[in-house]
């Protein structure tokens, strides 16, 4: 009690009201997620009877992981998770290579119009993906593809319903190039010059000198690429038709009607993102702050 009294006396009125407001908003932002996690552990009847009282946010009744087991029976959830992990993973890896190479050419090599090229790349930042989704759908539905059938290879038409249609459009990212360019420019020019003297090729400089120094920006780009890929919905909804290549967010439609199974599925696909966020929080915050200075 004395500790509590000392704590209360230590607070000024201004800071007390600030704390009250802070706690109020913490509740506003947290209560849906607490509800989701708690409901995912309850039986359907329990969840319904709890939802009009404070019990909605509390671990009441018999808690079990049954809903999570049922979720895997309703839909090929394991497949969805593997698909999302594969697609996001490939885009992250390919994105790091492609965007850093582009940035290297712009930031470290001297050639005409590299500034202009950067301006053009950055101009695409104002175009949200939604703008090009429908036209892009039209384009990918007409791209040539190799069809392997009974030992022969034929040229088919259309990329729809495949992994690569979910991967290629997202590898090159203007914002990733921007982050790499900014970072590469901060590295001393003398590094390149010394290596050039020693007869190193540009690619060797990229691979042996610049990239090994670029750990922080690689991490930032990886996080910023992974997150939207994992959370993606509109594009895979349009280009996938079968369960074997669908990602997790399209899979959420199987559990659209609320109830504890939906809650279990949503918790399942949100937890990886939350872990990633909490581990790499500083990278998130820094990269968002960096985006506001793009101009």
């Amino acid at each position: 009690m004395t500790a509590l009294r000392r704590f209360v006396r230590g607070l000024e009125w201004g800071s007390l009201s600030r704390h009250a407001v802070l706690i109020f908003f913490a509740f506003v932002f947290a209560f849906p997620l607490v509800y989701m996690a708690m409901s995912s552990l309850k039986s359907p009847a329990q969840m319904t009877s709890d939802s009009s009282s404070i019990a909605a946010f509390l671990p009441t009744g018999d808690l079990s992981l049954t809903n999570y087991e049922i979720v895997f029976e309703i839909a090929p959830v394991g497949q969805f998770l593997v698909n999302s992990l594969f697609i996001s993973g490939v885009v992250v890896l390919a994105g790091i290579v492609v965007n850093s190479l582009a940035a290297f050419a712009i930031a470290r090599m001297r050639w005409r119009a590299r500034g202009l090229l950067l301006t053009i790349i950055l101009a695409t930042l104002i175009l949200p993906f939604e703008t090009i989704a429908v036209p892009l759908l039209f384009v990918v539905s007409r791209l040539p593809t190799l069809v392997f059938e009974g030992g022969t290879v034929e040229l088919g038409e259309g990329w729809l319903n495949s992994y690569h249609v979910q991967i290629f459009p997202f590898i090159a990212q203007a914002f990733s190039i921007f982050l790499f360019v900014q970072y590469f420019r901060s590295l001393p020019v003398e590094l390149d010059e010394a290596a050039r003297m020693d007869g190193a090729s540009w690619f060797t400089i990229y691979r042996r000198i610049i990239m090994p120094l670029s750990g922080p920006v690689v991490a930032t780009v990886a996080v910023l690429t992974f997150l939207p890929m994992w959370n993606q919905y509109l594009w895979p909804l349009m280009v996938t038709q079968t369960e074997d290549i669908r990602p997790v967010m399209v899979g959420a439609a199987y559990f659209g009607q609320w109830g504890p199974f939906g809650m279990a599925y949503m918790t399942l696909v949100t937890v990886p993102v939350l872990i990633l966020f909490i581990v790499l929080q500083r990278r998130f915050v820094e990269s968002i702050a960096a985006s506001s200075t793009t101009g």
Partner: protein
Amino acid sequence: MQEWMRWSVGDRLILLLARDVVFMKALVNTLLFALVVVPAQAFLGLGLALLVNKAVRGISLYRTVYFVPVVISMVVVAQLWGALYNEDPGVINAMLGAVTLGAIGPIDWLGDPAMALFSIMALSVWQGVGFHMIIWLAGLQVIPPMLYEAARIDGAGRWAEFRHVTWPGLRHTAVFVFVIASIQAFGLFTQVDRLTGGGPLDTTQSVIFQAYERGFGKQDVAIGSAISVVFFALVLAVTLVQRFLGRERRGAVR
């Protein structure tokens, strides 16, 4: 309704869109959505940034909690709020009933044509506001502390300090926040798709949802693309306004 207009291509399709009742509703809804959500996200985000820009105990935990919805997929956010919005028994209705002592009865948040768009606005603000808080916070932290000291010496109160030091220092950030929030708001799609499908009575139709429905659902790539062009024009207009504001500011300061 659209069938006899199929022959027209190119710029004519936009004229046809203008006569399309559902599309015009979608356009009005999207503008209305942006008109409410953009200022709400921006100013609430600024309020939160000012709130957490002070070194009190546990402040980084609060920042984390406020930011968490940003990293969650809109699909999950929409479906989760769909459950919370349930009429009876529903968590939001129960909380509303508890706060107002039962004065406001259960509301059909997503089924009532008068409420559906508002409900979608509310969950969208909830999801996006933490993002803008972080941008404002970055802006706040580059304002030189010297200016605050000078203001205090001149005897400025809290409001005067905000009005003459903080806000002018955030002008550039403000433009950025409004542009990003607008582009995100115009892109309204997932919430509509997961929750209302454009209903009830087309009150939650949106531009991108129409582009998707026409271009993909009805396989009419031409109309879908035409809608995308209208969408692009919206986004471009916002960006040009940003350019204009940015230039004016530079001229005013120097």
